[in-house]
């Protein structure tokens, strides 16, 4: 459902000219639980950004649900992100002045969902990520793990076709990190949402069902690790 074909991406980082992706091809199906691994600078964040329509490839094509994305205007990319793609960041990136509920609900409000529906879906998801009773707390009053759960809920509340997580456990201790991964795995199984992580953390790699290794802008290996 997401097809990446021969994608190239270069960018200038200060004085250096970086060729982040040098012809990457990849296919992601529904309900996949996939990890893109590699050392820093291997281009995994770039690949994730391109899949997530945050960035555009210099050449090659990206198709989401059969529709090509690479030639799209910035506007249409925004719409795609809005409705179809969920993000989880390593820094959580919650809005500090909003409560957990508000952070999650915002994703739905952006789409014009009616109020009653927002309430229902948000509360449900917060329960699902194990945060019932914490809805009115601001991020400052939540632990790292709890914040990341809110982020996961936010990514999921709009029922995206794919959730992209960029090093989601990097700022958590191993125990908390593992609980987050377990949560995502649960959701993947129950809802069938596709999860794609980028990571260089071994534990995360171990959790993945499918592991793509990226090295120097090219896919080195792509193997199924374990099954659901």
């Amino acid at each position, binding site marked *: 459902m997401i097809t990446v074909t021969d994608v190239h991406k270069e960018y200038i980082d200060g004085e250096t000219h970086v060729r982040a992706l040098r012809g990457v091809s990849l296919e992601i199906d529904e309900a996949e639980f996939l990890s893109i691994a590699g050392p820093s600078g291997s281009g995994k964040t770039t690949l994730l950004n391109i899949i997530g329509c945050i960035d555009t490839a210099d050449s090659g094509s990206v198709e989401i649900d059969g529709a090509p994305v690479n030639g799209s205007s910035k506007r249409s990319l925004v719409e795609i992100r809005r409705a179809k793609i969920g993000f989880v960041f390593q820094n959580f990136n919650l809005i500090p002045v909003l409560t957990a509920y*508000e952070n999650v609900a915002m994703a739905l409000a952006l789409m014009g969902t009616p109020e009653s529906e927002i309430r229902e879906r948000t509360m449900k998801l917060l329960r699902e990520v194990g945060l019932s009773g914490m809805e009115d707390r601001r991020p400052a009053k939540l632990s790292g793990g709890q914040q990341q759960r809110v982020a996961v809920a936010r990514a999921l509340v709009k029922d995206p076709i794919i959730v992209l997580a960029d090093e989601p456990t990097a700022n958590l201790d191993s125990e908390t990190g593992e609980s987050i991964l377990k949560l995502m795995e649960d959701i993947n199984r129950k809802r069938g949402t596709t999860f794609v992580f980028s990571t260089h953390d071994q534990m995360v790699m171990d959790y993945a069902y499918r592991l793509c290794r990226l090295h120097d802008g090219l896919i080195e290996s792509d193997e199924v690790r374990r099954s659901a």
Partner: protein
Amino acid sequence: MTVFKSSRTGHHRTYAGLRMLAVLAAKNLTRYRRRTLITVSAIAFGVAIFIGMASMLDGLIAEGDRNLVRYETASAAITGTGYWDEREQYPLDITVADVDAVVSALEDGDIAAAPRVGFRGELIVHYDPYPEDGSVHLNMYGIDPERDARVFHLADALIEGQFLDPGEHGILISAWLAERLGAEVGYPVTITTRTRDGFHQILDMDIVGIYETPNPTVDRSAIYMPLDIADFYLEMRGAVTAIHLALPEPVPGAADLQPVRAALERAGVNLTESPAAGDGGPQSSAIELLSFDEMTAEFAAAMELQDAAFAVVLLLLGVIAVVGISNTMLMAVLEREREIGMMRALGMRNGEIRSMFVFESAGIGLIGAAIGLLLGAALVWYLTAHGIDYSAVLADVEMDFRFDGVLYGVWSPRTMITAAVGAAVLAGAVALLPVRRILRRGISDSLRQH
């Protein structure tokens, strides 16, 4: 729990709803308490000062107009055609000849009219009873005591002695002049001037009264004597240099001149020509009707200059406000770059992000403006009730000005609202530039920050 209102549904391009963005913006204001407070204070200060200054300026204009109407021009005047252009020379050969016809035409129309002869002369005083010899060039006016009191406020300004009586060789001088000459009621003066025909003339008069008006231009330059005395010595042969009129007016200087024209027309007095009286032979001397605006055109020009100066001050205040807020907003935007990146990743449109920051910035502006409005109102209240005493500063000023020592402010709700709204709008606009900078960057770059 906060409620997020969402707008239309079902449409492919749904809009987040300005309400949600506004609420978000409002919450964001609490993020940098101290910084926001300082900015708000700066705006409040600026708005309050602007309101205070506007009030003073309005007060100055109102006072100036009032003093002009009450002591110099009245609501309107009838003079010989072309007199007003030459009035600085005080010519006696451009006159209203048939004074009786004009005055009775006006009085029949219930318009109070005061004929005056204005001329230049030198006032000379001698040691004993004066402290020392002295002389000063002054503007001198022959006035009809009874009629003058109906049009001007000079009679009310008398502080010592008596007002003028027809036929008496008496003059009124100002307290300002009396102080400088060491004069008192009853002291004699000698006046040298020229008759209408140009002959030298000397008048021996006594000071019968001392006046004090709030109009320093008058106090520093004018003395008054009975019209019939002036007519005799200047050999005016019944003519006068101006007839001043009192008309009902809502605001000083805003009188409607139509009743005057109507009254003159009814009596057959032509404003382009008026039959001369007294100097034998038919002579057509043209007279004209001057409005307050026409008579004070130069004063208005000076006021325009003040307006321009005020606009400059306004600009400066605006610059301060802009600099103040834009710094705050710039820092806020830069600090939140990653957050902005996140919001964009989340699918928030550029326009929505811009709106959010504009609301935030306008919010600061609005709060500052509201406080500034209150402060400004307090300031204006003080100015209207107590005014500012400039008398010490003005005592040695040489230029023409028309307000007395104390300047009072004027309430102007319109100005106050404009200031507040302007501050809010300006503040809102200021956010756009820093936001634009960030939105130009790639989302991934923004996400990479700090």
